[in-house]
């Protein structure tokens, strides 16, 4: 058997199997029983019962490199990532956000204000007020420019976990996949395609609210496919729901420029991070209704039903390429570190 690693590598932060294993081996010790969804569930956040409602809490540190990229920056990600994690558990109206920054000595004030402005804009879009924060400065070389941690809280009457799929459920993706990761990769590798590639980073709690309003209890599982991409999310949903998942590759919305960049880099868009998308599992009877609600929202025009849950092969993610079928590997290595 594989022996536990003695040094942490970049792959342990990539959102795939290695990261999950590290968390299970090291941090699960911290988990204790709670009334609701706690650390042990390894979901997008926690949900604690308060009266007849659930308090949803999530936290996320942002270390994206470069800080500014086509379509967004670290400020926009830091708000969107946390707001979207709350929404994935059903809390689409954030009560408040925190903002903790770690700044490297010598960081330009103008850049900091630019980041602040995009945090402000994203928070306004999401309807999420900042309520507290923390500021630290470290010496040169002790962090790379700027790291931001945000925590969010929100209330919901019904928690949606990422473990609720059962055979026969259908899966919806809310739009084109791979935009964020490919934009960053293209900028870092200087592919010269960046004019066409823009990150999708943005809060989608409004879009999710529309889906939940249309689908109600028949929306059974949600996940935002950030690190590890859609493949990583589906692997988690398949494992936790104990179902197989069959993807119709031809139904997956992918922009031509993302596909072209993927071909050039040898990277499957299904493995690439998104920062403004959700994978939504619904009971089959509600699928068209939820899809219509998503498509009626400006952020969900390209939503598509792209996969379904099977009783066969629990835990496996199978790709129907249109020409044949194969298993979709779970992302494990460092496809690209510091994507968010």
């Amino acid at each position, binding site marked *: 058997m594989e022996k536990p690693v003695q040094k942490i590598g970049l792959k342990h932060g990539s959102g795939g199997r290695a990261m999950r294993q590290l968390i299970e081996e090291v941090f699960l010790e911290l988990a204790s029983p709670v009334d609701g969804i706690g650390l042990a569930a390894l979901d997008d956040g926690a949900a604690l019962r308060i009266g007849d409602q659930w308090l949803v809490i999530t936290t996320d540190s942002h270390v994206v490199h470069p800080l500014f990229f086509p379509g967004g920056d670290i400020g926009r990600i830091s708000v969107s990532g946390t707001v979207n994690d709350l929404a994935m558990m059903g809390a689409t109206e954030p009560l408040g956000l925190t903002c903790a920054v770690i700044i490297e000595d010598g960081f330009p004030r103008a850049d900091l204000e630019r980041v602040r402005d995009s945090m402000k804009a994203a928070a306004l879009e999401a309807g999420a007020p900042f309520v507290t924060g923390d500021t630290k400065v470290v010496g040169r070389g002790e962090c790379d420019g700027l790291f931001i941690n945000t925590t969010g809280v929100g209330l919901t009457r019904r928690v949606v976990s990422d473990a609720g799929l059962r055979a026969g459920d259908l899966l919806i993706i809310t739009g084109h996949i791979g935009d964020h990761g490919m934009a960053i990769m293209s900028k870092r590798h200087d592919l010269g395609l960046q004019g066409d590639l823009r990150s999708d980073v943005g809060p989608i709690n409004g879009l999710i609210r529309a889906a939940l309003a249309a689908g109600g209890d028949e929306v059974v599982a949600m996940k935002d496919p950030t690190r590890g991409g859609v493949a990583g999310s589906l692997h988690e949903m398949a494992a936790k729901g104990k179902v197989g998942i*069959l*993807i119709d590759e031809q139904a997956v919305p992918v922009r031509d420029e993302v596909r072209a960049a993927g071909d050039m880099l040898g990277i499957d868009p299904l493995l690439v991070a998104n920062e403004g998308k959700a994978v939504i599992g619904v009971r089959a009877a509600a699928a068209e209704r939820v899809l219509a609600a998503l498509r009626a929202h400006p952020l969900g025009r390209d939503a598509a039903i792209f996969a379904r849950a099977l009783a066969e092969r629990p835990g496996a993610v*199978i*790709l*129907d*390429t249109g*020409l044949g079928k*194969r298993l979709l590997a779970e992302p494990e290595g460092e496809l690209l570190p510091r994507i968010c």
Partner: protein
Amino acid sequence: MAKDLTSELKFRDPAKARALAEAMQRNLDAIGREVSVMHVCGSHEQAIARFGLRAVLPAQLKLIMGPGCPVCVTDGPEVDEAVALAGMGVHVCTYGDMLRLPGTSRSLADAQGDGGKVHVVYSIDQAVDLARAHPAEQVVFFASGFETTAVATAAAALAGPPANFSILSVHKYVPAAMDLVAESKETKIEGFIAAGHAAIITGWGIFEPFAKKTNTPVVVAGFEPLDVLASIVKLTDLIRERKAEVFNAYPRCVTREGSQPAQRVLWKVFEARSGTWRGIAAVPKGNLDLRPELAHLDARKRFQIDTASVRDDAATGLEAECICGAIMMGLASPNHGPLFGKACVPESPVGACMVSSEGTCRIWHTYGGAPDLRGVGGPAGPAGAAGAAGAAGAEGAR
């Protein structure tokens, strides 16, 4: 969703794929027993694995990848030579795939870690440029690949490289390995799919004596998924009709004669000699060595390469469990081995087939392994996932 290029539509049409799969099934029904066919090219395996083509093959048809990865068949002692050269302070230029290929105990990546001057290049021209830029230092190009890549090496050799440049050839010649597999009593291969890109150079005519001698049909195939499926249909036609013929299923690129200028360049520089292929055996005429006339460019002649210090013929524990040799002979699949996807992964490969992007293990690992997916979730193609997605999940709930 916009659908890419017209060419892609043409070669990735699900309806055509279904028709080809049905034609294959009719052939296998007519033959009435299990049939094994082999392809000998990593690029074919990539198309097969990427598009999940094995899931649409008839149950009685086994499609096996043979010795189609030039990196994988480069023998340990050959890598030792490059490692030893790096240890002597010589610049060693290599294709990226070869960097992590283990020798009998060490790889060029290890040599690089020890301060050896090892450079990854994308073409031999970059190695020649390096030699020109450092006229006082020796630069060796570790020349790997099948006859297609060997033509590029040959062209550079004839173009008058500088005096401080030499070539360590570990080029391999595919037709020789096909002979060996066809004559093996264990494999029982009834038909071959030959690599279209190699045939662009050699011409498809080169397989005619082979087909006749081994009484085995050969189909030359391109690399789009429909190319592969169509070539298998043709191959099963020939097997059903008991015709040991060569068929060119890649006529948009391949001719009977191939590229005469490329062949002239190739054989002016190289000659085919017997050599050991990793995990397989001695392959008669399987290695492409520099001809005696080009001894001045031959690193083996220029340097006294002493591999004793980097050589270790005692396999360690894990390597003893590696089944790469059986995989390359077509006797086993990657998931038959105990290490696949566990102790042996791309980040820390045990065997050669997990090192190269052309290796069977690496390809299977990248594309999720290859358990039998025939029948899972209904028929393949849009009638499967999307069709059922539209018609609610009744079938999935089964």
